[in-house]
């Protein structure tokens, strides 16, 4: 279990500071260069543009060209362009995809640069940092880290006479509250229980003492009794207690929208939703966050993005300069103070919490104590969607939780066996 502790005091910053503008790199590459930088989150574009402008001011010879591609097309485009040998110089990577891309030889290991410029990898949240190491190489500087917490609607709680969620809440407390908050006449449900891995059942599987993927990465844990308990929790909220909209309803209108429009009183949301909540006046008024209720354990999953370099880039030095800057303290600070994300750079969490005093964001940061990275294997995409589709059958009631879990585990195991061959 790699538990991550965020040092809340600013970690000593060594070498990866903003002042250095890479004299060596500037000499190695004569003239001005443009580095393309591919991202997928539109809400983060403004902050990224700010960081790029500042970087350019300090490194006049390097211009950063930000390419925003929507999530729906991001990976298709990335894979096609990398296959064709073009593709952005620097791009975003997430934990589930890292091994697949590193194993495919399309990412540039950055160990040599890290050693040369004495970048202290201890500056980063260990769980995320470790997720970007593969076969003894480092492939990315971590950008951010996310956490899941329980959003709740204060007004609906008051109206139903239910006490706000606390850190002591167990699953049973949540289920009881969700039932009390459900009001069919008004079309209001206690909680949204979608079939999402990262925000929902991955966490409850861990909390029940199960595993999604065995520690050696060779076997699925979805069919263990603990995992089945973790899945059953959500399925019961819909089909047994009727305290959540059906999966079909949540497909039409996702849980975040249901929450912000007052149709559900609680939902599990990631730290990436804070920007959305701030942007909606009503939500800003009634929403707040509480820690996730626990079962046997407090565990949760966490994802974190990394900035990686294309192994075929024509400007490796300039690309590294940009990655180093993005991974540095100044960039982390800009991301924290705008409330964009929790930086993976230690000691910045406070700034992120203070960026949005209207919500109790400390809850997200505290959750990181129990976080472990999202499960990933050499080829996560080969099983992630198919297994999730199989599990969803339990949500709609077309299969029992046990059967769905067994089938999903089978899909995972088949895919994992292929990786090994």
């Amino acid at each position, binding site marked *: 279990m790699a538990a991550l502790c965020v040092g809340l005091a600013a970690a000593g910053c060594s070498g990866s500071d903003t002042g250095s503008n890479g004299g060596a790199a500037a000499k190695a590459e004569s003239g001005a260069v443009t580095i393309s930088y591919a991202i997928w989150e539109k809400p983060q574009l403004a902050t990224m543009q700010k960081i790029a402008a500042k970087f350019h001011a300090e490194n006049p010879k390097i211009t950063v060209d930000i390419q*925003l591609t929507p999530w729906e097309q991001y990976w298709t485009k990335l894979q*096609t*362009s990398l296959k*064709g040998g073009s593709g952005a110089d620097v791009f975003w990577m997430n934990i589930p995809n890292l091994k697949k891309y590193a194993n495919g030889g399309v990412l540039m290991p950055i160990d040599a640069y890290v050693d040369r410029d004495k970048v202290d990898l201890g500056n980063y949240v260990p769980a995320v940092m470790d997720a970007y190491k593969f076969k003894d190489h480092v492939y990315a500087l971590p950008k951010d880290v996310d956490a899941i917490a329980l959003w709740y609607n204060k007004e609906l709680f008051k109206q139903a006479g239910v006490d706000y969620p606390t850190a002591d809440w167990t699953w049973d407390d949540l289920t009881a509250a969700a039932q009390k908050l459900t009001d069919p006449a008004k079309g209001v449900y206690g909680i949204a229980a979608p079939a999402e891995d990262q925000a929902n059942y991955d966490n409850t599987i861990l909390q029940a003492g199960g595993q999604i993927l065995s520690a050696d990465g060779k076997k699925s844990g979805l069919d263990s009794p603990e995992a089945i308990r973790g899945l059953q929790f959500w399925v019961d909220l819909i089909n047994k207690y009727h305290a959540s909209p059906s999966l079909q309803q949540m497909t039409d209108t996702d849980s975040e929208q249901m929450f912000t429009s007052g149709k559900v009183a609680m939902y599990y949301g990631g730290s990436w939703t804070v920007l959305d909540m701030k942007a909606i006046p009503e939500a800003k008024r009634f929403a707040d966050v509480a820690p996730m209720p626990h079962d046997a354990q407090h565990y949760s999953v966490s994802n974190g993005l990394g900035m990686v370099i294309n192994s075929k880039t024509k400007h490796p030095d300039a690309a590294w300069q940009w990655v180093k800057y993005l991974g540095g303290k100044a960039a982390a600070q800009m991301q924290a103070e705008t409330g964009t994300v929790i930086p993976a750079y230690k000691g910045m969490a406070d700034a992120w919490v203070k960026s949005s005093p209207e919500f109790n964001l400390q809850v997200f940061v505290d959750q990181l104590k129990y976080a472990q990275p999202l499960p990933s294997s050499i080829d996560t995409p080969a099983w992630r969607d198919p297994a999730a589709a199989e599990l969803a059958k339990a949500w709609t009631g077309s299969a029992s939780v046990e059967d769905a879990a067994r089938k999903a585990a089978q899909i995972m195991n088949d895919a994992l066996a292929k990786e090994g061959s």
Partner: protein
Amino acid sequence: MADAVAATGSQKLPRWRRDLWVHVVLMLGAVLMISPFVLEVVTSVKTFAQATHTPPSLVPHPFHWGNYKDVFESLPFGRQLLNTVVMTLARTLGQVLLCSAAGFAFARLQFRGRGLLFGLFLSVLMVPSQLFLLPNYEIMQHLGLLNSISALWLPGIFSAFGTFLMRQFFLQLPRELEEAARIDGANPLQVYWWVMLPLATPALMALAILTAIWSWNDLLWPLIINTDPSKMPVSAGLAALQGGAPHQLSRPDGWLAPSQPADDRAVRDLPAPCPRGHRVHRSQGLATALTP
């Protein structure tokens, strides 16, 4: 010539009475066609909470214009519009010319292996375009055209669909015209250019319009082939605006992006539905005038 109709009209009902049932049918259809658009426009000026209110209101209180605010941020919009125009024009002109030539040859010229070759053209139609994505990307790379304006339109000027469309149209035309020209000694190229093309205007217009629209809506190819926003057409540029987080398909703000090409000229330029008289005389002896 075509005035016989007017004469018969007088002894019947007035025209609006005669056409009334047609208008009723077409109006009902039009309402069905347009209602999703109305819904979208109405929703676009609502907040999400207003949008989810039942019964749905037609006029939101208060109006919410925020959804339109960020549409034009972060896009080199003018540049992309120009790219779209270039891409659309090149594809349309290219297809109209090349497809009508090939379509004419398939419809009207006798040569060995015609059926086989046409079968090959048709088989291209049957291949899902997604299948070409990777190989075409690699071909473009070999040609050194990645991230260029030419990459947007080059593969799009060759069309099996267009060839098929033009062939079917030419097959529908009566044979007398060209045979007269052929007897007068015109070669097939002259027949195609001077006799057939003028007659094919409706089909050429239809092909041009469909190609233009297909160009306008083409998303995946431009998005993948060109990475630089200033080399992208509007479709790919707008797609970036609609991208949500991985966890959501749609979000309360950014619900809407402009959906129509701002003008409906494409529609207004559709072939006029009142047919011109079918005049044979115009082209008789035409070929004699042409052959030196």
